[in-house]
């Protein structure tokens, strides 16, 4: 195998590695961005719905207990307040308050 060939192969490998690195970084960057966006949406919805900081935290615990990938979904899923309040250790009073504010009942 000639030196030129070996150098050529090394260059191609390096280029591929660079591409892979760049793509991985971009993906991680996109995922983080999406996470951030979701979190942002969650916070915005909490504010828009007039939740207190404590209520927002309680709702966050429910989101974690429900293992929601997208936390804003908790604003359209009242059933999670029933099913996840206990594992999330959210007091009943807080649940009632959240329900009233988010879903009107």
């Amino acid at each position, binding site marked *: 195998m000639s030196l030129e060939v070996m150098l050529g192969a090394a260059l191609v490998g390096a280029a591929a590695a660079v591409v892979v690195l760049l793509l991985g970084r971009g993906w991680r960057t996109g995922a983080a961005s999406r996470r951030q966006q979701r979190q942002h949406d969650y916070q915005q919805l909490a504010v*828009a*719905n007039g939740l207190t900081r404590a209520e927002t935290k309680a709702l966050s615990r429910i989101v974690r207990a429900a293992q929601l990938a*997208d936390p804003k979904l908790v604003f*359209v*899923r*009242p059933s999670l307040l029933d099913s996840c309040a206990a594992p999330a250790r959210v007091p009943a009073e807080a649940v009632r308050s959240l329900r*009233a504010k988010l*879903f*009107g009942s």
Partner: protein
Amino acid sequence: MVLPPGLSIVSISTTFAYLARLPIAQQWASYEAALGERHEALQLAACRALLDPRRGSRPELVVDYFADLQPSVQRELLPQRDQLLQLARKRITAAQEPRRLAAYRLVVALDDLASSDLLAQGLADPQPEVRELAQCSLVSYLRTLALEWRTLRETASEAPGLPTGAEAAVWQAFATALRQFAAHNCTDFVDLLAEFGVDSLPIVLGIVLVGQDGGLQRAFTRSLLTQPTPWATELLLAIAKESTPATASLLQQVFAGLATAPLAPAMVEQLTNLRDPRLLATLQSSLGCAWWPVVAAVAPKLGESEAQRLLLLLAGADLEPVRRQAHVEAFLGHSAVNVQIAAVVLLQAMRCPAGLGALAKVLETAAPPVRLAAARLAIDLSPPNLVTMLTPLLGSAEVDLRQLAMREVSKISFVRYLQRFDGMDATARQVAARALAKIDVQMLDRVAEEVASLEPQRRLKALQIVEFLEAGQDLQGSLLDLLADPDPRIRATAIRVVELAGSVEGIKVVLGTLADPDRRVRANAVEAFEQLDDPRFAQLLTPYLRDRDNRVRANAAKALWHLGCPEARDALVDMLTDRDETMRLSAVWAIGEIQFEGARDLLELRELAEPSLKVRAKIREVTTALGARPEVRR
């Protein structure tokens, strides 16, 4: 939309307003999640967002969740009904669509009869849930349709006819479901056929009986055997009216089954309860052939009113008379007396063209009222063996029955007696007449009828019977008419028979006959007066001592002697020397009858001078008789 109390749509609106600002693809997940919640406001908001073209429109997600939406939300979506149904149809008809169950559920939830074809298609779906849903839903539609059909039928005499409009799609799906019977084996569809009565006939003829699906035909047969409804009966009748090899085969199976089926009586009851004149006509026309084995098998078990109605149907059925009689006779074994009597009455109206064989058992074993009706029928038709048929009734404990039988048997016996009268000698006639009179309390009435007969021979015969029975006194009224009978033999006999005592009218008539041109009549008239044993009539009879007829003169002498007139003796002595031989013969007879003192000497003296051998022989006969008994008279 009416919101539940306390529901704040403000928060939900806030949430959805925020979601609406997100990129469209990010919105859908939230809307879909909202659809899955049992929350009216959430579901409705999600549906509106998904159906909004400005937000990219994902109506298929609404289709997916539609069946699980709250009823109020489903109602709110009715304006989008066509759009959703179109989507569902597209999804169902698309090959290999994994989410077709949701589409089917939407079709069912929207209660869209026009989409029944989709349900029919679902019957053969590879997905069991789809098959089950399609089957249940289609059956439910058809039951509703059948209920409406029956309601219409109950208010109108005619069948409502095949469905139209959206319901026609259900009907088409019904046909499809039956064509696919082998794939789903759902017998509910087969049972539904009978629920539509005669309107199912096209499907039965076009699908059930045409195809090679033996399972379908067996299911249909079983269905008919287990549904004793008027509509099933109606359908069966309609099938019976079709005369094709397929219908004949089906009917054969049904009838074979019906004859032993526990529900057969109920089925026949339905038959008898038919009110539609058209169906009744069908029933009557097929009663004799197709239906009869079934009817005959259950006839004794039918209710009274049903049996009566069936008899009425039989009465009006277009049947060959002998066959009709056989059918009617099956009801003689019914437990209800009224049914048995109705059968007998019908047999009477038919005049029993096949004979009265079945009545014999009835006369022996049935309840008294039935036996009475049967006896009257037998008497009315008067078969040759009537006496044999009625004989068991002669010993009946029922007075009416016994008297009827006695009267008829006596009547027949009397007729036979009259028929054989001429062939019997006098003794036999008398013995038979008296024997008959002992068993027949109406014999004198019968004799009186004969006395009034237009035929002289019969009147004469009747008079002789009166004489045998010594019933002149009882029949005096009838006999007096005969004293003026145009036939001299009858007048003569009547005078002899009649008892005149106590009858002024009779005496007048007999007085008239004393001048009858017939000598036998005059003689008998004289004899009749003798029987009166009343000296006041002697003056009436005295002129007859000079009658030109020997019998009259001799009878007059005999009568006058008995009435205490001694000149009668002188008249007879004169007659003994009359130039007329018959006069002398009659004189000898009369002397022998009255046996006055010295009669024997007188006759012996005359014998010596008598030139006629005949008269001498008569004298010897009389004197011999006189010698045998003492001459004890005045």
